[in-house]
C-alpha cells in the first residue's frame, strides 16, 4: 500500500467519525437537493412551466456551490485537527515526503467533494425526472454539464488550496472554518455570473472560467505547497 493511499484512508476514516465534517459532507448536499425538488414542485413553479425552468436552472447553481463548500470542513479538520491532536510531529517523523503529505491532505478533501457533488447532481436529475418530468432536463445543456463536471474539480481544488493556507495559520478549527469560508468566495464567481445570466450559459464562458480557475488553482496551490514543508510546519505553523 503506498503511503499516499495509507494517508488518504486514514483521513477518510477520521472524517467519518467527525460529526462536524459529516454534517458538511453529507447533510448539506441532501438538504440542497431536497430544497431544489421542493422548489420545483410547489408554489409558482407548480403551475408555470417557465418559472419551473428558471428554478431548475437556479437549482443547477447549487452544484457549483457544493464543490466549494464540501471540502472546507474536511480540509479544515484534516489540518487543524492534526494540530489540535499534536499528531503532526509523529506524522512528519515517518518516511512520508512533504509532497505525499500535501497531496494526501489535498486529495482527501477534493475527491469526496467532487464525487459527492456529482452524486448529488445525479440524484437531483433522477428525482427531477421522476417527480417533475423529463422535459425539464432538455434545458440541461452542454455548457451546464461542462460546468458541473469540468469546473467542479477545479472549484474544489481552489477551495482546498485556500483552506489549507488558512488552516496552516490557524490553531482553532472554527476560526479556520469561518475565515476559509470568506477566503473561498472568489471560487463562487461562476455562480454569480451564471445567476445573472439565467439559462444563457455558453461554452466560451465555461472555458474562460476554467482557464481562470486553473490560474487561480496554480497560484493558490503553489503557495500552499511552500507552506507544506516539514521545516515550515514545525517551526512556523501556529
Amino acid at each position: 500500500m503506498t503511503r499516499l493511499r495509507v494517508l488518504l484512508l486514514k483521513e477518510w476514516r477520521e472524517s467519518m467519525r467527525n460529526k462536524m465534517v459529516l454534517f458538511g459532507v453529507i447533510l448539506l448536499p441532501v438538504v440542497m437537493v431536497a430544497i431544489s425538488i421542493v422548489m420545483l414542485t410547489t408554489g409558482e413553479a407548480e403551475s408555470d412551466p417557465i418559472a419551473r425552468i428558471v428554478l431548475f436552472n437556479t437549482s443547477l447553481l447549487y452544484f457549483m456551490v457544493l464543490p466549494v463548500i464540501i471540502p472546507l470542513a474536511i480540509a479544515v479538520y484534516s489540518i487543524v485537527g492534526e494540530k489540535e491532536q499534536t499528531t503532526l510531529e509523529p506524522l512528519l517523523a515517518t518516511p512520508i515526503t512533504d509532497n505525499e503529505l500535501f497531496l494526501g491532505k489535498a486529495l482527501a478533501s477534493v475527491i469526496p467533494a467532487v464525487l459527492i457533488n456529482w452524486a448529488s447532481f445525479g440524484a437531483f436529475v433522477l428525482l427531477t425526472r421522476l417527480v417533475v418530468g423529463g422535459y425539464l432536463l432538455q434545458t440541461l445543456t452542454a455548457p451546464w454539464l461542462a460546468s458541473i463536471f469540468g469546473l467542479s474539480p477545479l472549484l474544489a481544488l481552489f477551495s482546498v488550496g485556500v483552506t489549507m493556507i488558512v488552516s496552516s495559520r490557524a490553531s482553532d478549527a472554527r476560526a479556520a472554518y469561518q475565515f476559509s469560508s470568506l477566503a473561498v468566495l472568489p471560487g463562487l464567481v461562476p455562480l454569480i455570473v451564471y445567476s445573472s445570466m439565467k439559462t444563457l450559459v455558453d461554452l466560451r464562458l465555461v472555458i474562460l472560467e476554467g482557464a481562470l480557475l486553473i490560474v487561480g488553482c496554480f497560484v493558490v496551490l503553489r503557495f500552499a505547497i511552500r507552506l507544506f514543508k516539514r521545516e515550515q510546519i514545525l517551526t512556523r505553523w501556529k
Partner: protein
Amino acid sequence: MITTTGLTRRFGELMAVDRLDLQVDRGEVFGFLGPNGAGKTTTVRMLASLIAPSDGSATIAGHRLGQDNSALRQRVGVLTETPGLYKRLSAWDNLLFFARLYGVSNPEQQAEKYLKLFELWDRREGLAGSFSKGMRQKLALARALLHEPDVLFLDEPTAALDPEAAKTVRELVESLKSEDRTIFLCTHNLDEADRLCDRIALFKTKLLTVGDPAALKQQMYGRRTVVHLGNPKPGIENELQLPFVTKTEWVNDRLLVSLSDPVAENPALVRRLVQLGADVQFVSELSVSLEDLYLDLMEDNHDAS
C-alpha cells in the same frame, strides 16, 4: 550510532543549538539533560531529520543528515513530548496507520506484538481519545517502536504523567535497553536520567559536559568520606596529617574528608581518628545527586554567560 559535528541551529537571531559535538554508541541509553528552552527538542528534531541544521553535520544509524532523510527516518523512532495520537481512531488503527507509513511488511503482526507488550491488547478497539495519559504514552511508545528502529528518541517520556504511569514508562525504557537499541533520552527528570542512562550530557544551547553520571559527579566533586563522631572535636582535622587527605570540613557535626581512593584510604583514616581519641560511629561515602551536579553546572554556565 549518532555522531554530530558542530551541529548548529539558529532561528533568526536566536541561537538554539550551538556547535554540538556528540558521539552516542550502539545500545547506549544517552541522557540529554537541560532546562526548558535549552534546545533539546530542536536537537532531537534535527537528529530525526525533521528540521535542517543551520550548520554542522550529523550521522544517525549510518545515514548522513540531509542526504536521504526518508531512509534516515525509517531507522529512527521518535516519541514526542505529547503522545500525538489520533483521538478518533482506535489504538489498533493508530498503530496500523503508522506501521503502514513506515512500510512495515507485516503491520498487523507488529501492531499486535507491541499492543501485547505494552498491555494494551484488550483495549485495542478503544478510541485513543478515551485512554488515560499513561495508556496514551504507552501507545505512543509502541508507535515509535513499530518499525523496529535502531535509534529511539524519547522527548520527555514521563513529563505530565502521574508517578505510577511514569514508573511504567521507565520500566518499558529499561526493558528496551536489553534490545541493543540506542536510546536518546531528553529529560529534565534527573532521577530518571540517573537511573536509566549509561551516559548523560548536560546541555544549555551548547554542551556543558558529557560522561557517565558517577564519573561526572566524581570529576566535579571528587570522593568524600563522611565520618560520624560520637564526640565531635573541631580542630581534629588539623591533626590528621595524612598525605592522601586533600580537604576536610565540618558539616552538622560530621567530618567530611576528601580522598582520592576511599576504599584504600578509609581504614588508615579511621585508625588515625581513633588514635586522636575520636569515637568513630559510622563511616560512609558522601553521595552527590545528579541534581546537585546539574544545578551547579547550570549556575556556573549562567555566571559565565
